[in-house]
């Protein structure tokens, strides 16, 4: 089963994504901070991580770098509330596998995940 980690500082976001993805037959883990996300990645080795760009303490861009340092094979999809071409470019250069904006279109998210799954 494909394991997906959802990282967002808002618990509500983690919750509905978990509910949705679970219903779509993914194993879903959640984390509301970058540090707990890293802990989870080391322990559970998810196949894919959804990372919120703006988070307190450590933001999503730094987390992306650290995930790729741990394992380049983990797919990372960036999620942002503020569309920003510069940030999008930067994250893609750092190895992000996708960049989607909030409000998240769940169908679009699923398509993205399905495409990534082909390569997992």
């Amino acid at each position, binding site marked *: 089963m494909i394991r997906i980690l959802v990282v967002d500082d808002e618990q509500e976001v983690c919750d509905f994504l978990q509910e*949705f993805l679970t*219903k779509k037959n993914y194993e879903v883990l959640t984390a509301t901070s970058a540090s707990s996300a890293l802990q989870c990645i080391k322990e559970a080795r998810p196949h894919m991580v959804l990372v919120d760009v703006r988070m307190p303490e450590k933001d999503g861009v730094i987390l992306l770098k650290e995930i790729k340092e741990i394992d380049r094979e983990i797919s990372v999809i960036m999620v942002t509330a*503020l569309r*920003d071409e510069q940030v999008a470019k930067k994250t893609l250069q750092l190895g992000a596998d996708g960049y989607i904006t*909030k*409000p*998240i279109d769940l169908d679009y998210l699923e398509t993205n995940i399905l495409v990534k799954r082909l390569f997992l």
Partner: protein
Amino acid sequence: MTEGKVPREETIVETLGQEDLQRLLGDHQKLLILYGFANAVSRLLDKEKLLNEAMNVVFGLVKAERGAIFLVDGKTGKLMPHVWRARQAGTKGNEVILSNAVTELVMRERKSVLSLDAMMDERFKGSQSIQIQSIRSCMCVPLESQHRTLGLLYVDSRLQAGSFSKEELTLVSGIANQTAVALENIDLVHRLSEERKRIEGILNALTLAIISIDEEGAISFVNPQAMKLFEVTGTECLGHPYQTFFEGGLFRALLGLMTPALQEGKGVTLGEVACGDVEKSILLQVNIIPLREGLVRKGILVALDDVTEKRTLEREMANAEKLSAIGEMTAGLIHEINNPLNIISGRAQLLLFEKGEDAEVSKAARVIREQVDRASSITEKLLSFARQRPPHLRPISLHELLDQFLETLEDQFTLQQVRLEKKFEASSPSILGDAEQLEEVFVNLALNAVQAMPKGGRFTVATRQEKETVEISFTDTGCGIPPDHLSKIFIPFFTTKSRGTGLGLSIVHGIVDNHGGTLKIHSQVGKGSTFILTMPLAKGGET
């Protein structure tokens, strides 16, 4: 002579001896020379010509061997030679060396000096210059003005003593006095003309348009700014009645202010007067100053300051500042709004996914999602407004870009019964711009135009190349923009459409600004609007 009887001429001549007759004729001749000089100098405005003339006259009157006129230099206070004269061939005029002893005496005493034999004269005892030059007779007369000594007139003779008489000294003094008066006049005229030039210089350097009107109502002065403002040349208006000046088109509003000012000597200071018509209008600061000499009215001075551009700039700057502040605030705001929207939308989607078969739930979830999308699209637009990235400028073929964007809107035009008209410049101007951003500008302007013509109409896109810019105009035959809306349409969120975000034109404004271009609007309610975009040409100009 018997009282009441006038002697006949022959009687006088008969009673005079030959010698007396010669003397009388000589005196008559001298009077004529003096009269002629007085006449001539009153018209002379050239200092050197005047002094030459004076020297000529003196040489005509007395048997001087050498002569010179010296003037006190205004800066150094020293006597400087201006005219020399020598009667005998071989004696150079500029060899005239003054005796300090003589000049010092004349300048100090401010009185004429006559020496019948200078070499023997007690007053000049010990003067080397007189001895070396063997000056025998000499006359030196100060050129006296009312307050100061302007210089001196000097004649001498080295040939014989007693060359000059006291009578001749009186004559030469007369010449000197007239010369001094004439010199003073020349100086006054010169100073007046300098002063006039200085004042004109000041008036010409002012950014104000200055018009002076005399008490008869005729224009007596206009500075270059006024000529530019009124589009006339000096000769076209000087001496003409002020009415002809102010009658034409733009300035009729001012005409009514002039008459009371001229007739009653009332000054007027008006904040700003809007002059003009539909075609062109300007904003003038008006100041009418009555001119007086004592109690006598001497016409008026009209000072006009064209503040049109200044006010426009101020307005644009205020807008720009507002836009930038709003921009910063917006980015933060959008982030905060999008997060809860994300959760609402996520939950609604989840509801649809789980309970989609329940019609009521499905409808509610759909509406929630749609409304979230609507709110989100506003933040999206707001973001592109707040996050206007600097344009990536590169030369673009303007007409190609316009054709491309018009093609994408073709269906829309047909659907809305809008007839498209292209009036492109024959040349193919190349502009410096960011194609993507410019397309956003064009689309925004075109869609606004289409929306302004709900019953269809004509949409004209025209280009016109200038020296360093190109004008792109978008004209519709729609409802037009009311004048009180014109100043607000670039303000974010200002909208008259029921479902508009009020951001389109703010974005357009920002992009055009970032491109170094300008955007102007002409609009008439019920007739339509024209948006004129002026963009800098790329170097080389054509593609």
